C-alpha cells in the first residue's frame, strides 16, 4: 500500500523541521552580530566599551598575523586542557579511594562538604605563593576548581551502582579490585562523562582567574591587559576565542561520550 509513501512523508516533515531549527539558529547568529555592529556604528551603545564585530575581526587578523594571538591562545588552551584532565583524573581517583574504604569516606565526609562549599578561586593567592607565579599555579587553579565536585559526583555514582552486579561478581569470588574494574567503573562511565562536561566550563574559570592573578601570557592576561589599557576590542576578542575553544572542548567530550557509551 502507501506505507512507503507515508514513511517518505514522515521523513520529509522531519527534515523540514530540522531545517527550520537550523534556520532559526543561523538567524539568531546573524541578528546578534549585525545588530551589535549596527548599534556600535550608530553609537547607540558606547563603541569604546562594547567595540564592534568588525573591529574585533580586524584585531583578530592583525594579532593572528604577528603571531601573538596564537601563542596567547596556545598557552591558555594548554593550561586549561591540563587542568581539566588533572582535575577530572584526581577527582575520580579520590572517589575510587573513598569507595575502596567506607571508613575513609565517612571520616572525610565533613571535609569534603566544606571544601565543596568553599569558593576555590579564593585559594588563588595561596596557590600562587605556593607554586610560584607561572604555569604550575594556573594549571593548579584549573584543576582544583573541578576536583572536589568531581569527587563528590563520581563517588555518589559509585555508591549507586546496583548492588546485584556486585553480588554476581562476589559469587564468582571477585576481589574488590576486580569488582571495581568490572562493574563499578564501567557502570559509572555515563556519570564520569557528564562531570567531564561540567569540568570543561569549570577549568576555563579556574585558568582565566589564575591568569588574571599572575600571568604575563594567555587569554586571561589579554582580558586584564585590555581592561587596563581600555582596549575593549582586545577583551572581546579574547572572549570570542574562549567561547570557540570551550565549545570545541565540549564537542570533543561529546564525541568521547558517543565512543564510550554504547547504550
Amino acid at each position, binding site marked *: 500500500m502507501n506505507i512507503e509513501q507515508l514513511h517518505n512523508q514522515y521523513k520529509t516533515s522531519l527534515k523540514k523541521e530540522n531545517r527550520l531549527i537550523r534556520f532559526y539558529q543561523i538567524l539568531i547568529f546573524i541578528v546578534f552580530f549585525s545588530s551589535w555592529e549596527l548599534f556600535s556604528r550608530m553609537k547607540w551603545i558606547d563603541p569604546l566599551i562594547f567595540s564592534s564585530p568588525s573591529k574585533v575581526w580586524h584585531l583578530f587578523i592583525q594579532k593572528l598575523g604577528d603571531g601573538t594571538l596564537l601563542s596567547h591562545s596556545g598557552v591558555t588552551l594548554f593550561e586549561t586542557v591540563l587542568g581539566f584532565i588533572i582535575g577530572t583524573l584526581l577527582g575520580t581517583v579520590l572517589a575510587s579511594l573513598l569507595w575502596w574504604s567506607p571508613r575513609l569516606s565517612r571520616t572525610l565526609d565533613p571535609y569534603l562538604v566544606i571544601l565543596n562549599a568553599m569558593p576555590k578561586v579564593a585559594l588563588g593567592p595561596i596557590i600562587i605563593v605556593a607554586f610560584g607565579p607561572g604555569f604550575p599555579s594556573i594549571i593548579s587553579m584549573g584543576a582544583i576548581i573541578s576536583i572536589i565536585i568531581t569527587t563528590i559526583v563520581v563517588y555518589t555514582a559509585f555508591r549507586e551502582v*546496583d548492588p*546485584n*552486579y556486585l*553480588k*554476581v*561478581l*562476589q*559469587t*564468582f*569470588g*571477585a576481589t574488590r579490585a*576486580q569488582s571495581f574494574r*568490572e*562493574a563499578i567503573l*564501567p*557502570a559509572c*562511565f555515563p556519570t564520569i562523562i557528564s562531570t567531564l562536561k561540567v569540568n570543561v566550563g569549570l577549568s576555563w574559570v579556574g585558568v582565566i582567574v589564575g591568569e588574571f592573578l599572575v600571568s604575563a601570557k594567555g587569554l586571561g592576561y589579554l582580558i586584564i591587559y585590555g581592561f587596563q589599557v581600555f582596549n575593549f576590542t582586545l577583551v572581546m576578542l579574547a572572549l570570542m576565542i574562549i567561547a570557540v575553544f570551550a565549545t570545541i572542548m565540549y564537542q570533543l567530550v561529546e564525541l568521547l561520550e558517543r565512543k564510550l557509551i*554504547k*547504550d
Partner: protein
Amino acid sequence: MSFLKIQDIHHTYFSNQTAATALADISLDIEKGEFVSFLGPSGCGKTTLLSIIAGLFPPTSGKILLEDKPLNADSDLSIGYMLQQDYLFPWKTIEENVLLGLKLINKDEGLERIKTLKLLSDVGLGGTGKLYPRELSGGMRQRAALARTLAVDPKILLLDEPFSALDYQTKLKLEDLVFETLKSFGKTAVLVTHDIGEAIAMSDRIHLFSANPGSLHKTFEVPDELRELTPFHARNHPQYQILFQTIWKELESLEY
C-alpha cells in the same frame, strides 16, 4: 556423608534499633545431583539461607560443609548463583558476560573459552555472542545468565527465584531448559521459590519454611513419577495435583 551439609544455622540481622532473627536452627542435607527447593512465604529467610550457602556473608552461628569441607576454604568456584533478574552487564557483549567468571580467574582463553561458547549454544543462544544484553528478550537474557553461571563449572547451583520476573510462557520454557541442562551436567541445585507448582515440577525434594523466625517446617519428597518428567509434563501428571493440594494446605496452616 552428604554432599552439602547445612548444620544448625542461625542468622540474625542487626540494626541500630532491632535484632531480627531471620533463620533459626536450620539443619539439612543435600545429596549430589539432587534438585532441592526451598519453598515458603516471603520473610521466611529462604533467600538469606541461600546467600549464606553462597558465601555472600557468614551466618551468625552454624556451619556449611561442601563435601565435608567448610565453604570458601579453597578459592575455586564451587558455587553458582542465579538471581531473580539476569543482571547481565549492559556494557559487555553476551559472550563477555558469559565469560565473566572465567575472566576473573584468568581462564577465559583457549579450551575454556571454546567450552563456554559451546555452552551458549547449548542454552539456545548460538550466534548471539556479539550482541549486547539489551538486544535480547527477557527469556534469552535469563538463559545467558544460566550459561554465565554454568561457565565456571560450579559444584552446586543456587537459584534465587530465577523465573519470577518472566512471563508465564517464557517461565515454563525456561524451567524445562534449566531442568534438562542441570540433569545433563549432573549438577546439584537449590531453588528458592514461592511458587508451589514450580517447586513440585522441578525438584526431587521440597523444604517448606515458616516465617518469624525462618525455620524448616516440613519436608516433602516428590514422587518418583514426577521426578523423571520434565517440569512441563510434570505439571500435567495426576500426582502433581495431589502434592500441590497437600503443600497448599500446609502453607495455609502456616498463615494462622
